[in-house]
């Protein structure tokens, strides 16, 4: 199927996991559409400054083809001394952010992009400076420039809320704009990336190959281990490094432990957002066992630091294994009891049912991943479709619900939690003896590698281009929230705005609180509210503003 679509393109690599094809810009849209129709969804895109190698910029589009259990990477290169590439966003909605990111960071111009606005860089970043180009030093601190005019015109009838993007629950700074009509949401827009820390640049300049796993781990404090695994897998893929069996089992165990801690955390936060604080406390008590396991195995409660290229750094000896199993049983019993009881509480269930609906077809177009996709009836799971680590040897089920609403997302996570418990037990029981790490490898120069993992929030994709001298040339991590966030406007549309917080939380965004929005009347474009979501809801909902 895929090969037929790619007919006439230069195939750079074709094995049982990945197909890389160089596509001429004119055929880009046609082939992208073809791939989508063949059942592949858009996974991520990476812009690369390849001028030191061939005087061009390149854009890599990654498609996930579950039916054939492979990833297809389309490579588009700009003509020499030009910056223009055709945008594939008009045919594939999911590519929008990736292309905007490449515009921001590299200055590639995408022809025909419907929304060519700044996505990542701060407002006061000067125009025409592109941090990911190779001639930009990673530690250059630029003086603030005047924000571009015309983005936000202050008007006397606009209510501005001067409070910063901070909020008492779990908080990461972020910003939403909701367009409402009455108290129904018509559209929403996201402006985030407040915590852009420049780590892609950092990885390719200051860091060495084996330091990056620790950087990757700090992309997110909740799902760090899956990022570092994905990075290691990408390098191992590029360099063809064999990873010892035991190391792969230990990676699997850590990934599942991370999923448990993340899901239990999410259940707690969901309870908190629904106003049920006791549920939050109970769930976080159960979660404490998982944190203990992580601390026991890796020496730290979070940021496990267990992955390194070629294997893992710490073993799980028999003594620890027994202790882990003991703690797991306690955690499983405790969390099952709590969650069963929480699900029985009528008012909580009522607030989740038929709320935040994401239709299956739309989800496919955007390329949503993880529990969000599975709650919309999309049967996808990297662990099953593209087995990595030791997942190929384990016996597990992928829960799929057809409710398409917040409750389904809750239930998907509920099922996954208990699948994880069983997977950890299986992995611990079947763990083979042997080496932990393979250090006998050579890193090739300028070779593309792809690492994919299933994070608690969905598929994480890491693309790495290696460079000799113990360096990476380009590293592009794509977190799962990145693919899920564009689905929020669709989930919000047509809903009562009072349900917005739980809808936004339902994708388990890496920022876990759901606040700071602008509510804009769709008819005259007036900003009615800017500030915390809930008040906006009350205010607009009560016809006050």
């Amino acid at each position: 199927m895929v090969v037929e679509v790619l007919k006439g393109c230069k195939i750079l690599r074709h094995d049982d996991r990945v197909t890389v094809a160089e596509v001429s810009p004119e055929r880009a849209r046609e082939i992208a559409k073809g791939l989508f129709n063949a059942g592949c969804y858009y996974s991520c895109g990476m812009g690369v400054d390849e001028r030191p190698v061939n005087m061009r910029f390149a854009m890599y589009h990654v498609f996930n083809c579950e039916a054939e259990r492979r990833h297809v990477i389309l490579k588009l290169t700009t003509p020499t001394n030009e910056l223009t590439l055709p945008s594939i966003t008009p045919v594939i909605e999911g590519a929008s952010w990736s292309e905007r990111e490449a515009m921001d960071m590299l200055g590639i111009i995408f022809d025909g992009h419907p929304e060519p606005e700044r996505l990542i860089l701060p407002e006061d970043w000067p125009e025409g400076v592109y941090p990911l180009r190779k001639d930009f030093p990673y530690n250059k601190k630029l003086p603030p420039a005047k924000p571009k005019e015309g983005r936000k015109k202050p008007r006397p009838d606009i209510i501005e809320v001067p409070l910063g993007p901070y909020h008492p629950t779990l908080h990461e700074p972020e910003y939403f704009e909701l367009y409402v009509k009455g108290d129904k949401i018509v559209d929403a827009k996201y402006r985030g990336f407040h915590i852009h820390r420049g780590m892609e640049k950092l990885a390719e300049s200051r860091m060495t190959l084996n330091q990056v796993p620790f950087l990757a781990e700090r992309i997110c404090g909740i799902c760090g281990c899956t990022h570092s695994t994905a990075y290691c897998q990408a390098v191992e893929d590029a360099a063809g490094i064999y990873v010892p069996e035991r190391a792969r089992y230990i990676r699997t165990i850590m990934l599942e432990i991370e999923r448990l801690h993340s899901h239990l955390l999410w259940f707690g936060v969901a309870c908190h957002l629904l106003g049920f604080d006791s549920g939050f406390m109970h769930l976080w008590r159960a979660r404490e066992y998982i944190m203990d396991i992580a601390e026991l195995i890796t020496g730290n409660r979070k940021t496990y630091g267990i992955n390194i290229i070629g294997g893992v750094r710490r073993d799980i000896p028999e003594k620890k294994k027994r202790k882990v199993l003991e703690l797991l049983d306690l955690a499983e019993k405790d969390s099952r009891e709590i969650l069963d009881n929480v699900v029985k509480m009528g008012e909580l269930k009522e607030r989740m049912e038929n709320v935040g609906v994401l239709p299956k077809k739309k989800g496919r177009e955007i390329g949503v991943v993880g529990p969000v996709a599975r709650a919309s009836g999309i049967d996808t799971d990297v662990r099953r479709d593209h087995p990595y680590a030791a997942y190929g040897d384990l016996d597990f089920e992928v829960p799929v619900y057809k409710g398409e609403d917040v409750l389904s997302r809750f239930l998907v996570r509920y099922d996954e939690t208990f699948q994880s418990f069983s997977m950890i037990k299986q992995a611990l029981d079947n763990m083979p003896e042997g080496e932990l790490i393979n250090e006998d490898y050579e890193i090739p120069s300028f070779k593309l590698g792809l690492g994919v993992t299933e994070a608690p929030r969905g598929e994480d994709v890491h693309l790495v281009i290696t460079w000799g001298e113990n360096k990476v040339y380009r590293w592009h991590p794509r977190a799962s929230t990145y693919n899920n966030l564009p689905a929020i406007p669709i989930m919000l549309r047509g809903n009562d705005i009072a349900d917005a917080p739980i809808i936004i939380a339902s994708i388990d965004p890496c920022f876990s609180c759901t606040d700071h929005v602008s509510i804009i009347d769709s008819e005259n474009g007036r900003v009615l509210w800017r500030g915390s979501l809930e008040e906006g809801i009350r205010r607009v909902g009560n016809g006050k503003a």
Partner: protein
Amino acid sequence: MSLAGCIVNVIFAVIFAPLLDGLERKIKAKLQTRQGPPLVQTWLDLIKLFRRPSTTPSESVGWLFRLGPPIALASILTAFFFVPAILPDSMRFWGDIIAFLYLMTLGTVAVTLGGFSSGNPYAQIGSHREISLFMAEEFSLAFIIAALAVSAKSFTLSNLFPLPFKASSLIGALLFVVLVYVAGARVPFDVAEAEPEIVEGPLIEYSGRQLALLKLSIYTKRLLLFTVFLNFFLRGTSAIRATYYVIGLIVLSVIYSTIEASCGRFRTKDAVRFLKRFSILGALCWLLAVMGW
């Protein structure tokens, strides 16, 4: 009726209300398998707040903003002059239940005015929620008070206490329990101060001493509502009455905080809808009272 007794009541309220809050925090902690703060923690918080500087935000209407907290606390404390608390003394006059209702309203209005004048949108939203909730709640309160007044044939609180054993007055008292819960801004109904949503609403811009006064007014308001309810049933000599009173307060706060710890928060819409339905019950109760049952 002695002024000294009333003053003792007021002092008791000021001292005991934060302790009761401490007890509730402890019980909630118990239900969440935590150790919880010491009983006197609320007092320690208040003392600290009294020592902290108060700031007036630059965009606020200064005098209105500063006036809010003292009025809120003073109005609640004044109400303790009419309502017997630990001692059965009160300044009774004809229609003091009306004065009591006005004082309750005045407290809420002072808080919301302070919130509106602070210039902070969070506070304005909180105040707005508070007002809409208060309106809904006032409606049912009016029915219940009317029912009680009709069944006791008096507007004087001291004639209402203790309640006569009649169907209407008992139902009225039961409905009053629910209202006490709502007016005490407890979890399903704490939309105005919802910490995770709007950062304590009207209180957001207050700091230091002003915040302490507002907090104290909230605690004393809860105590006041408890006191009114308990007075419907308290009988006997001063000593027995005082013992039952304190035990009653503790039992009520244990029950209320248990409910509070096992509920999710309403949306304002839901809360108002609940109160609307509830006021129908109030009206029925009033009809019962009019019919003389």
